[in-house]
């Protein structure tokens, strides 16, 4: 990206969840379901003395993309780290289930999920985990009919059970700002020790879990600049491609074979990780 492009581009990561959903849908087609004025906020956070957000941090936006029925599920990363609680999780799972139902009735509805989430909301524990499991099941159901596109643009990234949801998507888009991983950096540091993984060392963290690294490790399908136009165009291109012949998660044998080649006696390095995945998956 040169200076002129940098100055003229419209940033995607600077937008809130609602605005992100709006720019991905055809202009004027967005209609929000279970919006903030329905006031379906978390009943559990309030009991724990935490201020709630009226939409529980999840925007369900119905509309059209290239004239065809679509639903965008946008997680607001600035609210409680985009964590998945009972309500927000149910909104995503329910919308995906309705999209699958639409397809069975002959209305080809596609879904885009914007992952800005640290994973389960710890204050809601098992209810959040159950909701994430429902999201996984709903993605696997819907992706049989139409592509489910995941986007992690940053700055929160995508962790925990929701990283599994991202991995189940038909196509996954990231920017350099994004991070993708099962455990967040602080959890790994706590478990493995600071010598192994220093969560405050930002260049190191991004070198292991950042968007660029995940792109070179064959774990995502597009690595883009932080630009509304670039991301929006890529979503439309993937939708035109349709359901992939083989989903990434169906290639688990190739992934397991790659993991079997990891030498755990050596400290993991970004270039070694890339090489292992590339050897196993770029076949």
């Amino acid at each position, binding site marked *: 990206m040169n200076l002129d492009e940098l100055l003229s581009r419209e940033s995607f990561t600077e937008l809130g969840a609602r605005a992100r959903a709006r720019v991905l849908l055809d202009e004027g087609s967005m209609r*929000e379901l279970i919006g903030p*004025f329905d006031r379906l906020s978390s009943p559990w956070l309030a009991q724990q003395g*935490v*201020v709630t957000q009226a939409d529980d941090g999840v925007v369900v936006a119905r509309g059209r993309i290239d004239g065809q029925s679509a639903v965008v599920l946008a997680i*607001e990363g600035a609210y409680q780290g985009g964590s998945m609680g009972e309500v927000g999780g149910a909104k995503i799972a329910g919308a995906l289930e309705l999209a699958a139902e639409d397809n069975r009735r002959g209305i080809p509805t596609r879904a885009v999920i914007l992952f800005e989430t640290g994973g389960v909301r710890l204050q809601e524990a098992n209810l959040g985990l159950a909701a994430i499991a429902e999201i996984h099941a709903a993605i696997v159901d819907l992706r049989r009919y139409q592509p489910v596109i995941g986007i992690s643009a940053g700055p929160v990234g995508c962790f925990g059970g929701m990283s599994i949801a991202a991995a189940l998507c038909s196509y996954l888009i990231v920017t350099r700002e994004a991070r993708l991983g099962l455990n967040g950096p602080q959890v790994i540091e706590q478990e493995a020790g600071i010598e192994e993984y220093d969560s405050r060392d930002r260049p190191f963290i991004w070198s292991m879990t950042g968007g660029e690294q995940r792109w070179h490790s064959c774990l995502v399908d597009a690595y883009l600049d932080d630009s509304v136009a670039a991301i929006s165009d890529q979503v439309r291109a993937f939708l035109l491609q349709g359901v992939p012949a083989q989903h990434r998660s169906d290639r688990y044998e190739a992934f397991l074979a790659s993991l079997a080649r990891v030498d755990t006696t050596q400290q993991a390095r970004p270039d070694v990780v890339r090489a292992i995945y590339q050897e196993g998956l770029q076949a």
Partner: protein
Amino acid sequence: MEHMKFSFPAGRPAPGRAIAGVVGSGDLEVLIEPGAEGQTQVSVSTSVQGMGRVWEAVLARVLGAAPLPAVTLEINDFGATPGVVRMRIEQAFDELGQSGRTQP
């Protein structure tokens, strides 16, 4: 968490609803809906304790200065400073004023 309620004189009921902001660190969420003729009702939930008088002063300055439409105004605050509070409320009223933008 602390809850407060305030009321201020206002004009005609607002023409629609609007939302601004996020319950994120140093920020707040403002939801406005049409209120009863002549009166604006404000309810505040905030993560910061003991700032009732500051809230009253900030809201009086924003809502008491110019004649504004009557609204029901809900604030969910996560430690916003008075300047941010003022900007978010004004942003919500601004969204209200834009034609066709009465839905969030």
